[in-house]
């Protein structure tokens, strides 16, 4: 059972990682980001303003397709 490389095609914004291949453009993350850091473009999520992002994790929590998630936190140690 060959596993596909699931990391392929991720866009790492540091604070935030986006995986356009999985994004279905539902807009949930955009609507509920408390600081409006996200936007939709061509039916895919994009980061509108990475600086705004507080890494609150709401987008990750509510993305039905696991297409967006919080990157390594500043104060986090490497595993």
């Amino acid at each position, binding site marked *: 059972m*060959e*596993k*596909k490389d*699931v990391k392929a095609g991720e866009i790492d914004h540091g604070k935030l*990682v986006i995986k356009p*291949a*999985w994004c*279905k*453009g*539902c*807009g*949930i993350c955009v*609507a*509920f980001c408390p600081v409006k850091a996200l936007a939709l473009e061509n039916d895919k999520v994009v980061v509108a303003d990475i600086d705004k992002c507080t890494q609150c*994790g709401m987008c*990750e*929590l*509510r*993305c*039905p*397709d*696991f*297409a967006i*998630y*919080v*990157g*390594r936190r500043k104060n986090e140690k490497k595993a």
Partner: protein
Amino acid sequence: MPSALVEKYFRADKLPQIWCPGCGHGIVTRAIAAAIEKAGLDKDKVCVVSGIGCSSRAPGYLDFNTLHTTHGRALAFATGVKLAHPELKVIVITGDGDCTAIGGNHFIHACRRNIGITTILYNNNIYGMTGGQYSPTTPKFEKGTTAPYGNIDKAFDVCNLASSAGATYVGRSTAYHAALLTSLVQNGLNNDGFSLIEAISGCPTYYGRKNKKGDAVNMMEWYKNHAVNIAAASKMTPEALEGKFLIGEFKNSPEPEYTSEYQKIIDRMKKER
């Protein structure tokens, strides 16, 4: 919770899921994985069982021993798994149709036996998989393809039903309240007996469209604005609660679990021989 969660608990090569854009089922599934992580379960000792429906496709994406059964029968299959191997954590993922329409009998009996199964009911108030027929949880007067003039059936309150049937842990959350959902599922996993967690999950494609609820975002907003935590509700006036629905933990009253009761018989018989 980095996406290590997805890597650890999902069959990432099967992603993205088959579900429609904005379908709540993905949010609920992620919440379950998060709860399993928090509960610290051994992946190889978890068995996830489902029936048939959009919701019931979830186990295919989860990296455990997963069993996709026949429509409505998940709890009956799961009862076999659990009784055969009580040391396993058995999780059932089911839909409102799967669990409360065709599967209603297995549901009340699993509750009654208080068998150690944690059931997460993805309630989207409709049969998603077959294209939008009304279900036993479709609110009265709303529409489905088989209720073109509005549904005249009363809807089940599945939490209430589970409680009276004998479930010992019962709670409800929504796709919007994903963090609460995770903690309810985690508590359910910690209950030895039968747990039911109702997860209100939006089906924008059918329920939303048929009933003019708008898109996925609108549906999430509706949950946000209409759900009241049972803790908060006790301090609210009836007027303030008008048109709202309750979420939170409704019941948590452990009782002896079925398979451990059975083990007692085996042990007793061993002694008596």
